[in-house]
């Protein structure tokens, strides 16, 4: 260690850029949110325009809030705090700028492509493949810039905020890449490599952990920096930080299947999803406790300081949402809540309460420091806080009421449980309309709060001089080798060895045969006892090892990766191996005809999955309403799967043949003509657009690569096949005076809808597909 004193100027320019982008995209994302919430109340707000319909704008809302709003906020907070926590300027100004402008370009590309209907059809993973590659590249830029900065740090030991940033960077990279694996059919379209139940599992491994590692861990890191700074109090407990960090990153990954409870997902995965979600409760609350208890001795400051008000409320909402999550993961609770507004309320208490308020607190704290001028108006910041709080409470309370009401109505039966009490789906929808309106009001108030913050921001920084932080430090060449952990010491030490043994024995117990189960159970118990005994007698070695881990960034990163990778590997690999046609029992899907596939692509393009599920759960009310419960094999060839997550409209898994073609023809043009009271948008453009037949040949080739058993067809054969089926449908429509040319998109969509629920029965273990 040299004792030469050097002066460092932080790169706060990129922090300011990300901060302003947060403000801008936050308002855009929330504005779209208020619009889509209004569309659910007033269908005319879809304006009969393709690029303004709910199905295309809802993905824009979710992507904007997650990746544009929280993304930019995260980058601002990570870059500001990391430079100060490691006492080093960001490694590369070029990479910092590339990161900023690259990310904004991605957001603009998303904002253009999503309304135009270019989508992959998977929630929060809708962006098309060229943008996916850009996201991955920019994320790598972020990672390089971050880890390079760590490598040049003048502070040997890593603070807890940095741990969470490391977990964020490596886990999001892993999740994003795996869930976006696709084979392109054109520059703008691709099919995901996974299909059916496997795609569902990968999607929710990603979706759930996007919540965990994009919306939670980076924000926890930000909390660990900005909250003690603002409160001027020490963090409550380092020990709690250690335990809740490692347990959080290990357990979170396993909980994804709780999005698929009571579905065709194999039962062992459902059980893992539910039980690990319950185990996640305490680790999540560890973060809440460390945040709230850090405020001890500073609570009086909440009266005057809007920053602390926002932080205290945000951490409280975090605690509420992470209690609600495990509750909703209990299978019987989920039977009521899944597909309902309760889930929407749950994510918004996280997004509005936790993410939005952390962002607001951080921005109010940073503004005076980055522009060297006091906040324009503390009064307006307080007004923002109260508008936002009332907005969230209205929103969340409305969604609880709405979700539970509709869930109870949909599941209610009469006449001894044999008949649905509310057979008409629209009765349940129209009962919750007042609550849906209340949601618009709550969300609107929240948006007004952010507009006030934007005004406050502009007034604060207008004419102000941007200022970059500086610090004088003793430069240090490197951490002495004897302090750092080598490869062996990283892996072979009491905490890691006992954790690995415990996980190994747990897997042997869960997945082994009858004999191995006993071995696993006893091995696990003995490991646990030995670990406790070892910790009781030699706890200082555990603590000393962790201290050394904190000066070894590479070792820390490797162990974090191992912890987050374990759960996914154990859940996904068996499913990938098993999810093959020859393994399907009971029922197996019939591949779509080329015209049906074209119709399916239209279904995906219009975002029908945002309101309609294709998954009849193993529950009597579901079966009474929609038909026999869905089997795993029935969606085997679905790339992407379309099981859905919210039923604003009824399930469509077996809608094929339920009505005739004429019904669909009338319904898509004017949903209220067949279904009075519906809030579904009309789709007039389907009656004028011609079906894209030219691309089908290439699409079928890609499907064949993905093991969908299509016979080889020449482009001419594809065309002939499409023309023949389209003609049949057009002629069927003619009988009831519904006149259309057979080459219109509505015909392809009807072909797809009318075959939903078609399957072949197979004998166990002898399933073979006829070509």
């Amino acid at each position, binding site marked *: 260690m040299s004792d030469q004193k050097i002066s460092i100027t932080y790169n706060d320019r990129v922090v300011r850029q990300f901060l302003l982008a947060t403000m801008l995209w936050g308002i855009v994302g929330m504005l779209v949110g208020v619009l889509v919430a209004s569309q659910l109340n007033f269908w005319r707000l879809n304006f009969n325009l393709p690029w303004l319909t709910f199905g295309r704008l809802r993905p824009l809302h979710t992507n904007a809030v997650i990746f544009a709003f929280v993304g930019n906020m995260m980058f601002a907070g990570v870059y500001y*705090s990391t430079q*100060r*926590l490691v*006492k080093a300027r960001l490694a590369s100004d070029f990479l910092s700028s590339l990161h900023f402008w690259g990310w904004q370009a991605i957001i603009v590309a998303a904002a253009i492509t999503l309304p135009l209907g270019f989508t992959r059809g998977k929630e929060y993973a809708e962006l098309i493949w060229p943008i996916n590659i850009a996201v991955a590249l920019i994320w790598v830029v972020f990672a390089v810039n971050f880890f390079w900065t760590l490598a040049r740090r003048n*502070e040997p*030991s890593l*603070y*807890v905020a940095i741990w969470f940033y490391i977990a964020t960077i490596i886990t999001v990279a892993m999740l994003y890449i795996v869930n976006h694996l696709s084979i392109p059919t054109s520059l703008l379209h691709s099919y995901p490599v996974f299909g059916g139940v496997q795609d569902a599992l990968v999607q929710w491994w990603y979706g759930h952990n996007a919540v965990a590692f994009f919306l939670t861990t980076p924000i926890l890191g930000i909390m660990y*920096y900005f909250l*003690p*700074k603002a409160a001027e109090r*020490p*963090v409550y*407990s*380092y*020990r709690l*930080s250690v335990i809740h960090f490692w*347990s959080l990153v290990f357990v979170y990954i396993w909980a994804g299947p709780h999005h698929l409870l009571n579905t065709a997902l194999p*039962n*062992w995965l459902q*059980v893992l999803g539910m*039980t*690990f979600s319950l*185990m996640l*409760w*305490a*680790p999540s*609350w560890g973060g809440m*406790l460390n945040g709230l208890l850090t405020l001890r001795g500073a609570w009086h400051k909440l009266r005057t300081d809007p920053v602390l008000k926002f932080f205290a409320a945000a951490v409280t909402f975090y605690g509420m949402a992470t209690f609600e999550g495990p509750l909703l993961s209990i299978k019987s609770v989920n039977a009521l809540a899944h597909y309902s507004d309760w889930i929407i309320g749950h994510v918004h208490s996280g997004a509005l309460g936790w993410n939005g308020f952390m962002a607001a607190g951080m921005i109010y704290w940073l503004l005076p420091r980055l522009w060297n001028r006091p906040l324009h108006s503390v009064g307006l910041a307080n007004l923002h806080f109260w508008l936002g709080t009332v907005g969230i409470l209205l929103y969340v309370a409305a969604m609880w009421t709405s979700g539970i009401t509709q869930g109870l109505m949909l599941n209610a039966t*009469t*006449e*001894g*449980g*044999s*008949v*649905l009490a509310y*057979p*008409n789906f629209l009765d349940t929808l129209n009962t919750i309309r007042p609550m849906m309106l209340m949601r618009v009001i709550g969300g609107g108030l929240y948006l007004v709060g952010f507009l006030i913050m934007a005004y406050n921001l502009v007034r604060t920084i207008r004419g102000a001089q941007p200022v970059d932080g500086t610090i004088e430090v003793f430069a240090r060449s490197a951490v002495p080798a004897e302090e750092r952990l080598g490869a062996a010491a990283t892996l072979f030490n009491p905490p890691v060895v006992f954790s690995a043994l415990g996980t190994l024995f747990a897997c042997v117990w*869960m997945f082994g045969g009858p004999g191995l189960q006993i071995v696993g159970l006893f091995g696990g118990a003995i490991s646990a006892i030995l670990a406790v005994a070892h*910790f*009781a007698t030699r*706890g*200082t070695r*555990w*603590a*000393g090892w962790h201290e050394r881990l904190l000066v070894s960034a590479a070792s820390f990163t490797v162990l974090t990766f191992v912890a987050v990778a374990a759960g996914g590997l154990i859940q996904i690999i068996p499913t990938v191996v098993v999810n093959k046609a020859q393994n399907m029992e009971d029922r197996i899907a019939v591949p779509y005809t080329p015209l049906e596939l074209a119709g399916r692509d239209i279904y995906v393009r219009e975002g029908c999955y945002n309101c309609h599920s294709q998954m009849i759960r*193993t*529950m*009597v009310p579901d*079966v*009474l309403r929609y038909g026999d419960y869905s089997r795993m094999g029935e969606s085997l060839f679905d790339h992407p799967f379309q099981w859905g997550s919210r039923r604003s409209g009824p399930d469509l898994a077996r809608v094929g*043949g*339920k*009505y*005739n073609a*004429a*019904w669909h023809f009338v319904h898509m043009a004017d949903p209220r*003509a*067949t279904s*009075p009271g519906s809030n579904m948008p009309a789709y007039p453009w389907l009656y004028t657009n011609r079906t894209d037949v030219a691309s089908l040949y290439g699409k079928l080739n890609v499907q064949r690569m993905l093991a969908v058993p299509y016979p080889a067809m020449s482009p001419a054969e594809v065309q002939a096949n499409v023309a023949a089926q389209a003609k049949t449908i057009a002629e069927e429509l003619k009988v009831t005076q519904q006149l259309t040319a057979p080459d219109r998109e509505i015909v392809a969509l009807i072909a797809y809808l009318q075959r939903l629920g078609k399957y072949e029965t197979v004998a166990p273990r002898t399933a073979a597909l006829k070509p």
Partner: protein
Amino acid sequence: MKSPDSLPPASPPPGEDPLRPHTYDGIQEYDKRLPNWWLLTFYATIVFWIGYWMYFQQSGLSTSDGAKIDRHLAQVEAQKLAANAAFDDASLWKMSRNAVFVDAGRATFNATCASCHHATLTGGIGPSLVDAVWVHGGQPTQMLKVVNEGVLTKGMPAWGPILGPKKVSEVLAFILSHHTPPADVALAAK
């Protein structure tokens, strides 16, 4: 639990808890014990996982979701079969002259059937129900079968499983109220 502290605490102000020696950009850390209730919650959820997995995946005592719902559905079907057996042509005609049944049937018809058969029963997407043409048989029990089981090839959904026998019979009463019963039934109904 024993304290694993290995590092000497920085000297805290009197009456304050010990702080960790390190500060990061001015941020200090206490090293307080984990709250017992928090630890117990964590342990309890782990024990629950072990017990839940053993019961549902290994003990052989639980029934699978598929088996469970198949049993429930068998009960539902048995109830419906028993209820449907009660209807014959004469009783359905009789119901069609009863204002209570007809009014209840009208409500269900308007909510469920009118989108295809029109509120005036004159037809649209589906055929007319007030003319003399009965594509699938004009006896009340034949019509009941059509409503219950649907004619899937023609786009008529099976309403029995959704509406249940009571509502289906009411709808039928409403439809029949637009028609005149045959002489023998009409006499019996009086």
